[in-house]
């Protein structure tokens, strides 16, 4: 079997010298398929994590993932989309003993035990027509995004599921220059230092929004390259066309590093755009640039070292996780492949890292799993594309 080399196009707005070095590095990769002298974090799937859910519960599209300060793993999933075959015990009347829809928010301890669950419609807030994204902030509050057609809001709860705040109202989105509502917001990042929330906004809008995490007051927002966002349709992505000057929906993540760089997932544009917290554009990097449809840049997590030396990128279209050197944004290696077995993916959607460096993923569409990849330390890179990473 001949493996085609990973197609990586790095479009880095830095000095040409740096660019040249990067290109040579990529050429070496393509030629040798081994990465002499390069080390990168290595992972192995834990095929028996998490533990089976109680009550014959099953999980729908697992559409959000976050790790809290106690290394508890939180997911949000679309229980409402579990059908009559899969959730037969939730039918009226039940048609089988198995299975029932698990509550939409699930909390697992590090051993994989389910230790908390809540979520769904309630008094005083609009539960999303379609859940999307979950984030536990530094104050231990739980944020949830929403991406159905009319969804234009974020929700904030306590970890026990008590409603705290709603930002925006369903059906009220006025587009990417609205300063009161969102447009099907995908994911939330809360900066502990400034108490600002960065919103990847989203499936309807084409911008990053920064709000006060307590009051919800809009502070600033911007589009691709820091441009004023423009909701004019971009049509379908074309890898050969000039780079789009706007984000192409969905804007799927906005993650701030310790050193003050905001990494934005411009998913169907197959690129990460990097900004300063004030919206100043720094650079962009294309990943798997020929990818069409859903795109390659789904979600980002940083390695747990203080420098956050590595960046992990989930690609739910090519079904793999890229391990990138954050400074250069060079892809060092990747792992994962399509499939339903441990360590394989169908639409790997969300990614997060715990305090020990272990990596977690969730899958949407028909993947419908939460998986854990155990951090095995830094190791020499022997394959650009590691495939399915099973325990050695």
């Amino acid at each position, binding site marked *: *079997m001949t*493996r*085609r080399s*990973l*197609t990586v196009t790095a479009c880095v707005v830095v000095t040409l010298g740096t660019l040249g070095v990067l290109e040579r590095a990529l050429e070496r990769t393509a030629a040798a398929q081994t990465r002499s002298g390069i080390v990168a974090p290595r992972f192995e799937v834990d*095929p*028996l994590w*998490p533990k*089976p*859910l109680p009550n*014959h519960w*099953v*999980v729908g*599209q697992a559409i959000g993932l976050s790790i809290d300060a106690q290394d508890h793993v939180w997911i949000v999933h679309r229980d409402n*989309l*579990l*059908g*009559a*075959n*899969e959730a*037969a015990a939730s*039918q009226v*009347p039940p*048609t*089988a*003993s*198995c*299975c029932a829809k698990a509550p939409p928010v699930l909390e697992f301890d590090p051993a994989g035990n389910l230790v908390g669950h809540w979520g769904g419609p309630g008094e005083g807030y609009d539960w999303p027509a379609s859940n999307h994204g979950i984030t536990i902030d530094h104050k231990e509050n739980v944020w949830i995004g929403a991406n159905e057609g009319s969804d234009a809001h974020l929700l904030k709860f306590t970890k026990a599921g008590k409603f705290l705040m709603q930002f925006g109202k369903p059906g009220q989105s006025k587009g990417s220059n609205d300063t009161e509502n969102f447009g099907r917001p995908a994911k939330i990042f809360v900066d502990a230092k400034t108490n600002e929330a960065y919103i990847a906004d989203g499936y309807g809008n084409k911008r990053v929004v920064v709000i006060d995490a307590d009051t919800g007051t809009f502070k600033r927002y911007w589009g691709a390259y820091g441009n004023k966002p423009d909701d004019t349709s971009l049509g379908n992505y074309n890898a050969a066309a000039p780079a789009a000057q706007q984000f192409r929906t969905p804007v799927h993540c906005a993650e701030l590093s310790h050193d003050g760089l905001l990494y934005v997932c411009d998913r169907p544009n197959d690129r990460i755009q990097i900004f300063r917290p004030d919206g100043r554009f720094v650079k962009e990097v294309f990943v*798997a640039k*020929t*990818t*069409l*449809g*859903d795109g390659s840049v789904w979600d980002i997590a940083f390695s747990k070292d203080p420098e956050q030396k590595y960046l992990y990128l989930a690609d739910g*279209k*090519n*079904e*793999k996780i890229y391990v990138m050197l954050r400074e250069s944004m060079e892809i060092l290696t990747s792992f994962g*492949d*399509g*499939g*339903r*077995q*441990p360590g*394989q993916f*169908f*639409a790997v959607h969300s990614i997060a890292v715990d305090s020990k460096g272990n990596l977690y993923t969730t899958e*949407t*569409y*028909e*993947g*419908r*799993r939460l998986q854990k990849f155990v951090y095995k330390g830094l190791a020499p890179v022997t394959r650009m594309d590691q*495939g*399915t990473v*099973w*325990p*050695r």
Partner: protein
Amino acid sequence: MMRTLPIAVVALALGFASLPSATGQAPPSFKVDPLWPRPLPDHWLLGSVTGVAVDAQDHIWVVHRGYDSMTARTEIGAATSPRTSEECCVPAPPVLEFDGAGTLVGHWGGPGDKYQWPASPGGLTVDRKGHVWIAAAGPPEIPGSANATTGRGRGTATPASGTNAAGRSSAPPKPQDAHVLKFSRTGAFLLQIGQAGKPEASDSTTGLNMPASVSIDTAANEVYVADGFRNHRVVVFDAETGAYKRHWGGTGEKPDDAPQPPYDPDAAPPRQFRSVGCARVARDGKVYVCDRGNDRIQVFDKAGKYLAQGFVSKSTRGTGSVWDLAFSSDPRQQFIYVADGHDQKVFILRRDTLETIGSFGDGGRYPGRFYSVGSIAVDSKGNIYTGETLEGKRVQKFVPTKNAK
């Protein structure tokens, strides 16, 4: 070239439900091997698995629905035009052969000049001579069997049409399956019984109608067809010539294709089969038939004389509980393992009494859990293999831990 990944077999002790047995016989127990089989090469994906079988060398054979069960927009970006992903993924060939270690050692299948490849395969079996039999059971009757063209997987799967992969909605539908196929173990065509597009009713001596699965009586050189998803009978043919031998309906009566009311667990058991998912011949010559929609196994002698019946999860409605069954590997075949794709578990029955004495499995996409486990087979060492259809799309291995030779 296969990927050579080191394998560490980590075992999961499954939640095992043991029921009291009137005679105190302890049920066997199993644990899943989460790292079996090995990853497929070339970014191949399994579609909905409709059949799993074990041959005389303990090789494991799988048939799956391939492209037609894939969501084109999201699942097989490397198999669409235009290609939307770099390498991942493409449907694997429909027939796959694994060795006991889980390494893929053979693959074939698909349309040919001399036979009609199924709109959707059903069960498969490998006879003692190494011939591979495949039931042509499509289009699938269970909602959700053919995926939505949106690729969004939002529970809005469209009804099966036979060619329901995204981007192909304008393709003419394949003729309705009404046949079984026999191949050599390397995929050379040998025999077809029945004709696609020419379904015949339960009194036919030449045709079938969406047969669910096949099994072979080696001693008599006969093939038993579970006929099926539309017909209401077991029909037997000569395994060499395909000549009709005999058939019978539920409780050994003349089969009746008249419409039936929905299954009612509280009503008197109907005489007729509701849907015939399997017909498997035990070593002692008894024939065990999966009457899926009636949640029961009926037992016959080879001539079709009714002997007994046993219910499995009798309260199950929906798609029914008895999707497929396999016998334990001990010489007396003391146990029957029933794949219940609606309750998402494998039931363990005593073969002599048809009493349910245990079960394992639960719903979910994780190792040891199931989504639509619809096919089951046992190797000579007592390992159980299961196939999951719809969006389960896996084959799993369960290793005996006790009492399960």
